[in-house]
């Protein structure tokens, strides 16, 4: 068991409330179930630059149901590991698809005009730091037992969380972590139709957590394309809400224009027969397309690195 430092925060969040908490590199945020099966939504910002925040969309590349060992990633072009999931019980299903509930949803579905919802809870919590409702981003949802199928169907199932379950998130950078108690669980099944409190603790860094942080940073940082603001072409954050074009602006698209080189190859009759078989199997509509697809598919399968941010191919 890894030793953390002493707790520096230890609070209980009542139903439909939340709290924005600075959690500095090496510190651990622990979220504990005080009842059976309460959905917890989560947002996360770089505390030194709020425009860098968690990207649930990119976290899905690790798998749709992230778990112990997976990471909370920030939005490209930053693309930094923000937190690591140190502990997570099997009874904590995670969801990266549902975004967050909001007031309009309950107005449409139930005709309730003022039902507690995660968008408004997040907004109230981050308001303490001067952030606006527009700064709320899609949430990483813990103890949310959602399911899906190949046809695109999506369901929310009975919450499997148990009293005493906890999730530990290790900060790999200085973050503003925002755990909230999801407010939808009294009228939909996400929290088994009963809202419960959660406990939130932050533990100081320890020598052990510092070693783990450095190991993660060694493995998951150092890319040229983990970009910082000083490399941005447009650096300043707009203050005017109305958009208008910058006179004379020309976009600098990467590798634009794409250029093509024609390469003549010779295939034996046997090669050509095999190419035709592959075409019939759907590799390409033309000989040229099928050859290019075969070559590039082979390269991806045999030479590309294992997905850098994920556990699965």
């Amino acid at each position: 068991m890894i030793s953390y430092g002493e707790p520096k925060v230890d609070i209980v969040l009542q139903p439909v409330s939340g709290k924005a908490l600075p959690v500095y590199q090496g510190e651990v945020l622990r979220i504990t179930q005080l009842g059976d099966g309460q959905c917890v939504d989560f947002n996360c910002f770089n505390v030194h630059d709020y425009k860098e925040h968690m990207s649930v969309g990119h976290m899905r590349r690790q798998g749709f149901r992230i778990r112990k060992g997976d990471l909370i990633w920030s939005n490209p072009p930053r693309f930094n590991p923000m937190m690591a999931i140190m502990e997570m019980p099997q009874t904590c299903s995670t969801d990266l698809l549902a975004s967050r509930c909001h007031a309009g949803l309950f107005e449409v579905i139930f005709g309730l005009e003022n039902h507690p919802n995660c968008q408004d809870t997040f907004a109230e919590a981050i308001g303490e730091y001067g952030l606006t409702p527009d700064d709320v981003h899609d949430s990483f949802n813990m103890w949310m037992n959602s399911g899906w199928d190949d046809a695109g169907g999506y369901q929310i199932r009975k919450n499997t969380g148990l009293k005493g379950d906890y999730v530990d998130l290790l900060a790999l950078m200085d973050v503003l972590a925002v755990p909230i108690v999801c407010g939808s669980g009294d009228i939909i099944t996400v929290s088994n139709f009963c809202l419960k409190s959660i406990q939130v603790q932050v533990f100081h860094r320890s020598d052990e957590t510092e070693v783990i942080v450095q190991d993660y940073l060694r493995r998951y940082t150092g890319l040229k394309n983990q970009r910082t603001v000083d490399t941005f072409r447009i650096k300043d954050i707009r203050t005017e809400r109305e958009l208008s074009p910058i006179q004379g602006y020309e976009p600098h698209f990467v590798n634009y224009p794409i250029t093509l080189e024609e390469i003549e190859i010779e295939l034996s009759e046997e090669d050509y027969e095999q190419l035709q078989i592959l075409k019939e199997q759907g590799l390409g509509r033309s000989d040229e397309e099928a050859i290019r697809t075969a070559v590039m598919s082979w390269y991806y399968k045999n030479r590309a690195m294992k997905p850098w941010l994920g556990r699965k191919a």
Partner: protein
Amino acid sequence: MADQTRKLVVEFDQEQLKLLDKLKKEKEFGENYKDIIVRVFRNYVRQELGQGGVR
């Protein structure tokens, strides 16, 4: 009967060619695009159809 061959023209963009350049450095598949493309294709066939391979 002499082996017949089929000539094909295949287009690759600059980024695809950078990857073929990496294979060029490996030398296993040849030292020019033409050889590399054919040999990689044969490897693909072996993997997908269970036939052929580097020849």
